[in-house]
């Protein structure tokens, strides 16, 4: 069987189907790759730490093995780098899954987690707290970002519902409502920044908008991990429903999918996942758009496979991007969003090119 395809934006299709044992082996392999990537992320940095030491530190913390390693190393491993890379993995996984879900629901290959205004809303919320001092110190920047994201998403949904976009058959109105919402909140962000921020604050905002894993500690992982894993569980329960959207909303209804309920659950799920991740690391771009396409290239468009594969690729990609962001410029950490796009775009172009050549 060899039938790779170019069809609009959904170009990517290389592997038609894999037998179940192969998929199982692939899952183990993927987990192995993720563990290795996280190991590397913990090992690499200003102070290089051997993988063996990392294993000892993790053993000490989790199993009480009592290896002797320097407390400084153990502190860096446990309190700083491990939490950071785990949060990066969760963030990448959740964004990639959100992208895959939205591309299916909106039947648009360019859909991504921020299409419904979440990133724009989060930035408005963040700058409102950081610069305008909203919440009087009671609200953290993450809290502000999360609140902003949810407000923007709610507004976009209300606008889409008001114009019949949520119950209707076309996805265009939802996307247009998202565009309107995003523009509005971006303008609000710019307004606050240009009227109230000093140069230092403006730079801080820009850095935050491009994504930063800098301040991440265990409580953030405690939030990101359940959201990513729980989100995966809910998404996989709707994998077959997502498949049924291939020929549109009417076709999904005709296949017995309670479309209104499924859309409500999945839009809500992607909003919750995305808002959580954006509030922790900022609005990292590219992952949610491109990883689902890479995953589709590997395992085809069926969501029973696409969702777990997007999850794993997203996780590994973000962890690797984090490593690169810390080593590419000496003495400086690049915003992770810069790295995801800088390295993701050529990788994506390569996939497109490969898919094209096989025609």
């Amino acid at each position, binding site marked *: *069987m060899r*039938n*790779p*395809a170019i*069809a*609009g*934006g*959904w*170009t*990517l*299709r290389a592997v*038609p189907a894999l037998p179940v044992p192969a998929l199982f082996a692939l899952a183990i392999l993927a987990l192995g790759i993720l563990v290795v990537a996280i190991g590397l992320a913990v090992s690499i940095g200003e102070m290089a730490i051997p993988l063996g030491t990392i294993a000892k530190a993790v053993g000490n913390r989790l199993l009480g093995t009592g290896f002797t390693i320097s407390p400084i190393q153990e502190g860096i491993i446990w309190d700083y780098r491990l939490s950071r890379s785990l949060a990066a993995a969760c963030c990448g996984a959740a964004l990639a899954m959100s992208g895959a879900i939205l591309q299916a629901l909106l*039947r648009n*290959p360019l859909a991504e987690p921020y299409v419904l205004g979440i990133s724009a809303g989060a930035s408005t919320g963040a700058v409102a707290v950081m610069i305008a001092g909203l919440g009087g110190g009671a609200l953290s920047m993450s809290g502000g970002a999360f609140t902003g994201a949810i407000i923007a998403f709610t507004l976009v949904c209300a606008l889409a519902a008001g114009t019949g976009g949520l119950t209707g058959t076309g996805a265009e109105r939802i996307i247009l409502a998202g565009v309107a919402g995003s523009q509005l909140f971006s303008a609000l962000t710019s307004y606050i920044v240009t009227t109230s921020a000093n140069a230092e604050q403006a730079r801080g905002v820009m850095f935050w908008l491009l994504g930063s894993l800098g301040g991440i500690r265990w409580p953030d992982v405690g939030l990101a991990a359940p959201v990513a894993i729980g989100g995966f569980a809910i998404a*996989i*329960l*709707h*994998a*077959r*429903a997502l*498949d*049924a959207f*291939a*020929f*549109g909303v*009417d*076709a999904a*209804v*005709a*296949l*017995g*999918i*309670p*479309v209104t309920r499924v859309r409500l659950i999945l839009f809500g799920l992607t909003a919750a996942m995305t808002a959580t991740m954006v509030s922790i690391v900022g609005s990292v771009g590219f992952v949610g758009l491109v990883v689902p396409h890479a995953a589709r290239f590997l395992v*085809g*468009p*069926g969501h029973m496979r696409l969702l777990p594969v997007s999850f794993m690729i997203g996780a590994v990609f973000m962890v690797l991007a984090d490593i690169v962001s810390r080593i590419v410029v000496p003495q400086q950490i690049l915003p992770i969003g810069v790295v995801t796009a800088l390295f993701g775009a050529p990788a994506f172009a390569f996939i497109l090119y490969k898919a094209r050549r096989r025609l």
Partner: protein
Amino acid sequence: MSIATRDVRWAAGGAMIVDGVTIEAAAGSTLGLLGPNGSGKSSLLRLIGRLRRADAGIVTLGGADIAALPHAAIARRLALVEQQATTEIPLTVLEIVRLGRTPHRGPLSPWTGADDAAVESALRHVGMEEKRDRLWHTLSGGERQRTHIARALAQTPSELLLDEPTNHLDIRHQLEILSLVSRLPATCIVALHDLNLAALFCDTIAILCDGRVVCAGPPDQVLTAETIRDVYGVNAHVERSPHHGKLQVHFLIG
């Protein structure tokens, strides 16, 4: 009655599209829906398939009010082949036909032998077994239509709704599809434009005009020169074919 509607009404954009339609289809029979463009055939099919909710009136499936049935329960017994449903996603014929098993499967239940049997039978019925690995966008119009019909058959429906299934098909495939449909044990409601094909394959015919049923019954009673003139504004001569014994409509020009 397998499928029945009673005084069903549905408006869209301020216009009455379906305006008090009462029709019924006996189990295993084939009902043809005829009528000019915009007469409400597609909308009526959507109401019967519960893709839209009727503003008034009632649609029953096997005697049960369809408004009270969950979507999955409807899809396990009623399948719909829409006009021009397409996708940009690179799906193979087999994957599309497999979608027909969706209402029969739980969210995580594995693929079963019964699923396989339904899909294989559906592919065989439409003659697409050999083309199962072809991608959707490489298919001709006729192959796409047959794939959609196979997907619908994979639902193992006892009721099948088809919206102009012979569109885009050459005459051989038109005849093949309609003879397949009329031989199926399922109750079929088929929206058609071709009066002669309707006469050949339908047990009963309902003619719609402006969202209302103008007349309904066996082809012999419904397809008259008078009705055709009233509904379509076309002069015709209707006679019984000496070759197949069904009605034959000759259109008179000028």
